[in-house]
């Protein structure tokens, strides 16, 4: 909890003095960053080539053209898919936060075997990959009469996110002090009131962390939109990207795919750069309590 405060202290701190040891540290870190980033340079360099240029992607920056970007942009119908992606991601994440914090409340607070069982029950969902269960899921949706609309993938995103989110929130909740709630109880606050005005605000760091990790996953996931959306006008960006990937009989359009990938990651990169501090601290603060 002291985290927020500590951060402020750091604003005024001094940096380390230059000594051979610190220089070595910088060198190691910089080298490490180069190793980490260099494969991504390939993506960027290839995306600036024309789609037909099939020379090895390792010949970096041999051509500068926006053709691949234009192709990806128009073929994906970028503005439309961007809006779809934003709607799907924002909508799902909102529901996840509401449902998972609610579910974590009893699980994190009640100390009985039942609560402990429910905790493990949700966690068990973490370990089953969705590809395996997709056919039974489709049948279930069919039986319930849920048609394929833009909301169907959202249902699945929310469901699949519950194990992790409940795990995160209930873990975090266990570390929150109960005293405030106790006094609120004495003051006669109702359960919903206690949840919305005390618990939910206290969960904020974990919520940021949940929004970031789950948002990132939902933004990049193509699987559920691919199998559960029938209308092209409802596709999200990753599904649009898939069409450049190719198959055994049709080689991938790598340069266009890379351009599409940059276009798909661009909103994330912008958000990341703009909110970097909150982003990193958010993940950190939420996860550390788990």
């Amino acid at each position, binding site marked *: 909890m002291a985290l927020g405060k500590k951060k402020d202290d750091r604003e005024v701190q001094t940096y380390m003095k230059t000594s051979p040891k610190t220089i070595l540290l910088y060198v190691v870190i910089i080298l490490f960053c180069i190793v980490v980033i260099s494969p991504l340079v390939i993506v960027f360099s290839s995306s600036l080539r024309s789609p037909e240029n*099939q020379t090895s992607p390792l010949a970096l920056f041999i051509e500068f053209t926006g053709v691949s970007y234009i192709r990806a942009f128009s073929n994906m119908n970028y503005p439309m898919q961007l809006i779809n992606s934003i709607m799907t991601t924002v909508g799902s994440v909102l529901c996840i936060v509401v449902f998972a914090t609610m579910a974590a409340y009893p699980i994190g607070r009640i100390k009985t075997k039942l609560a402990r069982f429910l905790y493990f029950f949700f966690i068990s969902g973490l370990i089953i990959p969705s590809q395996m269960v997709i056919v039974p899921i489709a049948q279930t949706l069919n039986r319930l009469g849920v048609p394929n609309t833009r909301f169907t993938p959202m249902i699945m995103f929310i469901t699949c996110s519950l194990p992790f989110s409940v795990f995160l929130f209930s873990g975090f909740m266990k570390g929150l002090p109960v005293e405030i709630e106790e006094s609120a109880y004495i003051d006669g606050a109702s359960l919903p009131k206690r949840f919305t005005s005390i618990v939910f605000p206290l969960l904020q760091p974990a919520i940021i962390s949940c929004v970031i990790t789950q948002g990132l996953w939902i933004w990049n996931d193509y699987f559920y939109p691919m199998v559960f959306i029938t209308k092209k006008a409802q596709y999200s960006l990753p599904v649009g990207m898939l069409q450049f*990937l190719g198959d055994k*009989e049709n080689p991938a359009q790598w340069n266009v795919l890379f351009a599409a990938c940059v276009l798909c990651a661009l909103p994330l990169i912008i958000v990341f750069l703009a909110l970097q501090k909150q982003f990193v601290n958010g993940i950190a603060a939420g996860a550390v309590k788990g």
Partner: protein
Amino acid sequence: MKKQVLFSLALAGAMTMSTAVTAMAYDHEAIENSGDITITMMVSGTAYENDFETEQLPALIKEKWPNVTLEVTKLPDDNYYTSLKTKLASGECPDLILTQPMYAGQNSCYALAEAGYLASLNDLDTVAGRQDLNSVTYDGDVVTSTSGVSILGTYYNKDLFAQAGIESEPQTWDEFLEDCQKLQDAGIQPIVMGDKDQYVLQFGLYQIAANEIYPKNPDFDVQLRSGETHFTDEGTWDKVLEMYKTLYDNKYIDASKSLGYGASQAITDFIDGKAAMTFDGSFNAAALTAEGAAGPFERGYFPIPGTEGVYTATCLSAGYSIYSGSEYIDQCKEILDYWQDGSSPVWQAHLGTGRIIATYGEGADTAPNYELFKPFIDLLNEGKGFYWCNQAWPAGTETEMEVLFSEMVGGQGTEVEDIVEGMQEKFEDLLED
């Protein structure tokens, strides 16, 4: 009409109602009598520039029938298969889907037809009278509308062949090996393959099988299913695998490299002039004829010659089927007939992509790369063309073959006899139930 139905029922016993009913012509005015309709279609592949399926086709259909909106989705094949299964399970399958002949792949038209998902296309105008549709006919019903053929062959770099002093395409297996040796002696990598994508092993092996197995016994695969023949039979698959292995033994294909190479990397090496040959399909012609680091050079395309004559792995390509649960079966039939009729703008546009090789219709011989493919089509017309082996096997048999073969050339101690035994075992296992 009723009498006729009863008659056929009595005659055929198990014949289904739908077969009897579809003996009538379908409603050729179905689209004209509908309001605004949206027809969905799902195929596998890559979206090219001015893509045929996702861009040209919907536009041309709209031009012909302004009240029809065709929505086409293109996915990479593994994703296509997963989507297809999921959409079938959720009862929301697109109206038109891409299916493969016989048992090939997970969109095999036989497997889908057996489960009752495909509408019969017997009453299509463009199907009537065609004799070449056996591999898309299930239980008396044509279930896939297809017109082109697909080829497996050997692309080669004519410049490099000339450099090594090779003057003509090899006509026998021994000549083929000699040519490889000449290339190697001239310091040229004879063949590049992207064996990291193990499916490319099929490109070479099926060509050899077309030479060594089917000419002697065209029913080899039918008999496999009935147990009369086996993969382990001497002089069949052991021979094919042994022949292909020779290429690795002599380093004509460098296993130490190829196992770490992807299919697209192999294509790049070929167009960059780093290797003289690669085994690939007609479907990859555009990529293989693109200009690479080696600049422009002339390509040739020949079938791997056999020990006793030249045959080719050329067969009917994948095509389009109508989902039996579709609301718009007759409308889809109108579209397919229009598409396949050999002179319509849709047909011409499809042909113009150079990704199908048509054996009939206007302008079939002016399609891009037609010169490359002509020798194969001639062989096919002479009755020397055979289907790709995996079309006759339950899906998964070829995977076992690929895995075991790459174990062998990767020096894991696997022998040819282990491969044929493994294939037989897997084949029987997959046929079970």
